Structures are given as C-alpha cells and as structure tokens.
C-alpha cells in the first residue's frame, strides 16, 4: 500500500526573527470551507504551444504530448489555472481576505509544500478550462525552518469543456521570513551544507539526555543494557517515562521492572526534513508498545524507514551513538515485515 506515515513538512524548532503578530486561530479557522475561486476561467484554452514550452522546460520527449492527437502532460493541470503576470481575476473575496490578514500580520512570503493531483480525463488542445476552489484548511501557527507561519490548503476542481477533468489539492506555507540573506555571501550549491562525512572530532554529536534524580535510574539501566520500567509500590502500576510519583494513586514509592525487550510498533513517523545535526534522515521514530504494556518513543532500526508498519514486532537493542553514548532502540524482528 502507499501507506506513508505523514511526515511533518519542514518543521523545526528554531527561534525566528519574529516581527509577525500571532493571529487568533479562530479568525483563520473561519476561512475553512470558504471559496478560493468560483466559476473561474483559465486564461488560455489548452493549447499546443504551451504544451511544447512545458515539454521543452521539463526535457519531456513523450510522443503522447506531440502531434495531431496530442494530450497535455497531466502534471500541467495547475498551469492551465495560473494567473500569470497579470494575476488572478477570479479569486474570491475570502481568499484575498485571508491573504490580506496574513500579510498584515507579517506573514508576507509564500512557499508551496504539497501538491496532490488526480487526473480524470486527458486534456487536449482546444479544451476550455474552468475551475472552482475552496479553502480546505488553515493550520495553527507553525515554526518552520523558513520562519513562522500558517499552512493554507486549497482544493480545486478543474473542468474541461464543462466536464470534470481533475482535482488539485495544494498546500502553501504563508510565513514571515528570517532576516534577508546577504546576496553576496551566496555559494554554489548554497545554504545549509549537507552533513559531510566529517572526522569524528568535528562531527555533530547527538543531543545528550538531561539526567536528574528522577530519571537517573533509567539511564543507569541503559548503561548496563537494561531497560527499566518504573513500578509504583503502592498500586503496582507500571509507568514510563520515569516520573517522581504515580499518576494513578499518587504514591512517591517505586521500584523497577526490567523490560523483556519484546514490543510492537504502536505508531510511527518518518522524519525526512529538515536534517538535524548528527541525524541522518530519513529515519523512523516509533512509539513502541512494550510487552509489559507501557509505550516509549524510540528509533526503529534494522528495517528501511518505508517498511516500518504499525503492529510490526520489534526487539530491544542498544545502539552505540558515539564513543561515550548508548541509547535503547528497537530492531524489527526478522520476518516481521508486513
């Protein structure tokens, strides 16, 4: 199946320059369901010259897009609805109002993050394009690598000569950019250099745990390759992660149980972007349900990130992260892939 655990787009904790003003989320949420475009008309009918220009740009030599029986490349769907240099004339008042609200609060930049298209019938030269779009979702305020902003999702129904031709779901991030980039400091390729295979001395290190008297026993267990679960000596309830008291009966008294190491994947995400220092995406982060019943967040190893499945049996392993640091992780059991 085309499962794909939802990966969070470009989200990272980083303090941005924040000239923007937080907006009450209810004001943004109120735009959900409002039209983004109504009975809009494509500026040009589907036509051979635009198809040819597209194919030239993409390096696409597919003969299906050439000659008297040519169809348009399906991925051009959105191109037929674009406003171009002269802009959109068919946008709804609601869409303009949402953008004005975000612009006014300092979220002035736009970047597209997702595009999901379904093609219902081929487009051919001469087809007249019409479309309607709705604002499907406006996210809460998110901190991303680019800056703080809101994701806006629209869904568009595209028709050709009045017949349904395709659907187009589009997500953008409307954000407040970080400080301008110094134009002369540009390099090729620029921006964040890919983490090189640097010598160990300068390699970024995984973040260290903060060890305190409430969790020291857990880390002492890890050092001895034992995964210890806390147990309330009052009501015998197991708890993880470690806490000073029992959330069931309130007792501060506890002892420990060593986990057998057996578990299953209760849920997981795959982190693709952004890359954090000392991490090598994509990788799977699992919520593992231990045989004892408690759940813990951990890396899933020994299986490609896109083969991780909910319910997959896993087994405790201790991974040496660097010379002085080991972490518990969970290894997919042999033959456990579904």
């Amino acid at each position: 199946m085309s499962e794909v655990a939802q990966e969070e787009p470009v989200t990272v904790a980083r303090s941005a320059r924040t000239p923007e003003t937080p907006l009450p989320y209810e004001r943004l949420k109120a735009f959900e369901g409002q039209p983004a475009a109504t009975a809009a008309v494509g500026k040009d009918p589907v036509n051979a010259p635009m198809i040819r220009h597209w194919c030239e740009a993409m390096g696409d030599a597919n003969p299906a897009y050439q000659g008297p029986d040519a169809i348009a490349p399906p991925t051009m769907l959105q191109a037929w609805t674009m406003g171009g240099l002269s802009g959109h004339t068919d946008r709804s008042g609601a869409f303009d109002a949402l953008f004005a609200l975000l612009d006014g609060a300092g979220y002035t930049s736009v970047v597209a993050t997702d595009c999901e298209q379904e093609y219902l019938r081929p487009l051919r030269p001469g087809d007249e394009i019409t479309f309607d779009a709705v604002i499907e979702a406006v996210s809460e305020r998110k901190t991303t690598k680019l800056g703080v902003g809101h994701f806006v999702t629209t869904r568009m129904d595209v028709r050709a000569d009045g017949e349904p031709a395709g659907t187009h779901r589009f997500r953008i991030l409307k954000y407040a950019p970080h400080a301008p980039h110094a134009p002369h400091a540009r390099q090729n390729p620029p921006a964040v250099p890919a983490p090189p295979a640097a010598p160990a001395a300068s390699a970024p290190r995984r973040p260290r745990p903060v060890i305190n008297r409430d969790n020291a026993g857990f880390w002492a267990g890890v050092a001895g390759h034992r995964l210890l679960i806390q147990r309330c000596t009052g009501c015998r309830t197991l708890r993880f992660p470690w806490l000073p008291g029992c959330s069931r009966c309130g007792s501060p008294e506890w002892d420990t149980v060593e986990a057998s190491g057996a578990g299953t994947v209760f849920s997981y995400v795959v982190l693709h972007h952004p890359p954090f220092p000392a991490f090598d995406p994509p990788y799977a982060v699992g919520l593992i349900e231990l045989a004892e019943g408690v759940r813990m967040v951990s890396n899933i190893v020994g299986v490609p990130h896109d083969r991780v499945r909910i319910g997959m049996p896993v087994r405790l392993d201790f991974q040496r992260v660097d010379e002085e640091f080991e972490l518990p992780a969970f290894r997919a059991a042999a033959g456990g892939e579904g």
Partner: protein
Amino acid sequence: MKAGDELPELTVPITRTLIVAGALASRDYQDVHHDTEAAAEKGSPDIFMNILTTNGLVGRYLTDHFGPRCVLRKVAIRLGAPNYPGDTMVLRGTVTEVADGTAVVRVVGANGLGHHVTGTVTVSLPEGTE
C-alpha cells in the same frame, strides 16, 4: 513488475535555466523563482525551483520509464529541501503496489541538501506490461 521493483534513477542537473524555464512554462511568475535579489530579500540564498516544475519532472520520470501508453492517474508530492541552482537532483522510484493494470510508485528526489521531493504516483499501464 512487482512490488519492490526499483525504477532506474533519473539525474536532473538543477540549472538556473531549468528553474526559470520551468517557472515560466508553468506560468509561475513568483519572483523567488527567477530573481536572485528578490529571493535573498525573502530569506532564501538563491532562486529555487517551483513546485509545478518538480511535479512535471516527477511525471516525466514515470512516463519516461513506463512509456507513452501509460496514463498518469494521480501524482501527490511533498517538497522538502529546495532545488537551488548548481545542485543535482536524483529521482528514484520504488513500485509499492501492482493491481488491475495499475502501479503505485513511491518517488524520492534527493539533492545535495536532502530530500527535495517525496511522493506517490499512480499510473495505469497498457496491457501486456510485464
């Protein structure tokens, strides 16, 4: 063809010309796709490829492989690391499902910064496709 099969990779040099040509062919005149100074003003180190071009390249990757008689049914992509000029993107695909003349392919396009695009494409295959 079966689930798990891998498509041959496609290497796409990310030139300034490709970024600008793709933006214009898709009617996308956002300045961050053609004006370096405007891009810098918005916090980007350079111009970067627009999503419509990425979408077009992903579509081309599939139709190049399956041939002119295949039909794209769905293309769903998510962008991560931007495609800046001077970089190279390598598209790779893995068949995840084959049923009733339709294949689902998981596509990843990686550049020097990480994954530029991840996505899923559903394509109908002409009869007789092995």
